[in-house]
């Protein structure tokens, strides 16, 4: 098997070979590093590559496994972290100039959990500055490129995570999601991304964008791999009071149950308005495929969901500006123009608007919860449009012109407002060869059902076996 072939193995496949000792973690890590060395200049997915450290860790891992100390399916698997997860002794830039030389003295909880599971850290991934934008355009480190079309954005804010996983520059990655920042790059790059339930995965040691909307989630090439990463990440963390003390099920065990007997909803308002026709067709075709697999599909009404956009705006702007207030006073010139302007907006959101948004959030959350008593999950597009070109500022569709940020986040940010788990799974390609994402939203802490539906769909998806074109 060639080096590049190794990087095409899923985490589950590579993990199985490592467990049987037919694949060396050092060999696998070298394969990824070799690919990063050749291709990161094109994709700009990594801000920091930890070559020596990764080889040393893989070597230690190999010895551990040889001694019979196999830790589980992530042991020896090369992964990467969005560059806002704190890593002890490794600079954590948050995609910003302000933190370009900051080296934390402690690890974030999610970094610790992946390390304890035996994963090998390849490096830190590019992102929208301070996670404040859905395109991934970054004036400080360059914009990560979409592996399906290098003239287009990979989506953000976890842009490097999306690009690196899709281009096989790591086996899996972590992203964070405040308005869609895991699911949007997953959809635009043709990979799987999960925003878990609010409170499922610790945010301790992760630089915040908006405390009450932030989530950390895995990004991988298969649903099974997302389940494996979530297994290592999920659970109460005393360092993060927002995490819940809720039992963590065996996510992998639930995957193969199929969808027969499940009922999935289709909320027609908001999510299916003003869509790229190819996106609409792909998502409705996905619903049909799930029906063919034995699920029942029914339309559901979510009349309050359009209010989520304004609520999300008030909460993100107020919370992010509160977090950045110190740097705005002393280092404002070092922010990129788009992020600084957004932070300026937060200065003028009223406390009454913020509180009203938080109260509205409870009403919206209750409505979605009620709908999820009638169906097991519901389906929407992840984004109404495929990946835009790098310099796109506004888009017009069905006579409606809107900022590209509004287009990209329309279907994802309501689910940050409610806190339900949401998975993006690739469900097709446009005629121009751009990936389309299907969003599956489930009940609180029921990631298992969301993953189960995604896994069943993945097996019959038109994206099965499709890879981005290789770099020449």
């Amino acid at each position: 098997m060639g080096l590049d072939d190794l990087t095409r193995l899923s985490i589950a496949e590579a993990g199985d070979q490592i467990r049987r000792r037919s694949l060396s973690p050092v060999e696998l890590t070298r394969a990824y590093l070799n690919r990063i060395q050749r291709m990161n200049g094109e994709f700009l997915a990594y801000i920091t590559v930890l070559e020596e450290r990764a080889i040393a860790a893989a070597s230690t891992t190999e010895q551990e496994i040889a001694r019979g100390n196999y830790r589980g399916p992530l042991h020896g698997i090369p992964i990467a972290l969005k560059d806002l997860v704190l890593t002890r002794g490794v600079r954590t830039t948050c995609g910003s100039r302000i933190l370009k030389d900051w080296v934390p003295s402690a690890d974030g909880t999610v970094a610790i959990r992946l390390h304890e599971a035996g994963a090998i850290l390849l490096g830190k991934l590019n992102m929208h500055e301070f996670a404040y934008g859905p395109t991934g355009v970054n004036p400080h480190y360059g914009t990560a490129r979409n592996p399906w079309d290098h003239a287009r954005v990979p989506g953000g804010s976890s842009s490097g995570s999306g690009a690196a996983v899709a281009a096989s520059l790591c086996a899996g990655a972590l992203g964070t999601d405040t308005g869609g920042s895991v699911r949007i790059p997953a959809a635009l790059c043709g990979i799987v991304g999960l925003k878990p339930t609010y409170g499922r995965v610790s945010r301790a040691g992760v630089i915040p964008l908006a405390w009450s909307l932030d989530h950390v989630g895995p990004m991988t090439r298969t649903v099974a791999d997302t389940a494996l990463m979530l297994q290592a990440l999920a659970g109460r963390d005393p360092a993060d009071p927002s995490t819940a003390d809720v039992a963590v099920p065996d996510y992998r065990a639930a995957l193969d149950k199929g969808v027969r007997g499940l009922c999935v909803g289709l909320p027609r308002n908001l999510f299916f308005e003003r869509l790229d026709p190819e996106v609409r067709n792909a998502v409705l075709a996905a619903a049909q495929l799930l029906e063919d697999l034995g699920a029942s599909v029914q339309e559901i009404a979510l009349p309050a969901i359009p209010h989520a956009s304004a609520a999300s705006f008030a909460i993100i702007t107020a919370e992010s500006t509160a977090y950045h207030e110190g740097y705005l006073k002393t280092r404002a010139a070092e922010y990129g123009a788009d992020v600084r302007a957004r932070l300026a907006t937060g200065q003028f959101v009223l406390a009454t608007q913020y509180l009203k948004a938080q109260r509205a959030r409870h009403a919206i959350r209750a409505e979605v919860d009620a709908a999820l008593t009638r169906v097991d999950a519901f389906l929407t597009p992840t984004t109404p449009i495929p990946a835009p070109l790098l310099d796109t500022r506004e888009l017009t569709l069905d006579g409606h012109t809107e900022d590209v940020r509004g287009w990209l986040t329309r279907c994802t940010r309501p689910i940050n407002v409610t806190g339900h788990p949401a998975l993006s799974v690739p469900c097709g390609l446009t005629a121009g060869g751009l990936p389309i994402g299907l969003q599956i939203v489930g009940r609180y802490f029921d990631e298992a059902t969301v993953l189960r539906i995604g896994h069943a769909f993945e097996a019959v998806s038109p994206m099965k076996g499709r890879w981005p074109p290789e770099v020449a």
Partner: protein
Amino acid sequence: MARCALAFRLDTTTGPLLKYMLLTTQPQEETMAPISTQLLQSISQELSRIPTDQEDLPIAAVQLNAQMDGLLRLDDLNLLNVEPATVLLPPSEDSRGAR
């Protein structure tokens, strides 16, 4: 520190406010309550402490305007019975749990 000199100050953008008064057909005392220079200076002083670059204000205004209708429409939701959220807690586990 150079940025502080560019911080937003009300006294540098009073032009449009005065124009608004001129455009109205009603007498000034019917459209606006009298505001003392002292009060204006006091407001200006407070606003100047907001760390915002003047060049960002037009974008901020566009972003706020784009959401203003949506923020007003939040009143359409019945929020009277919703307690103000001062502490955000994770949601409770679904009663049926994972299947």
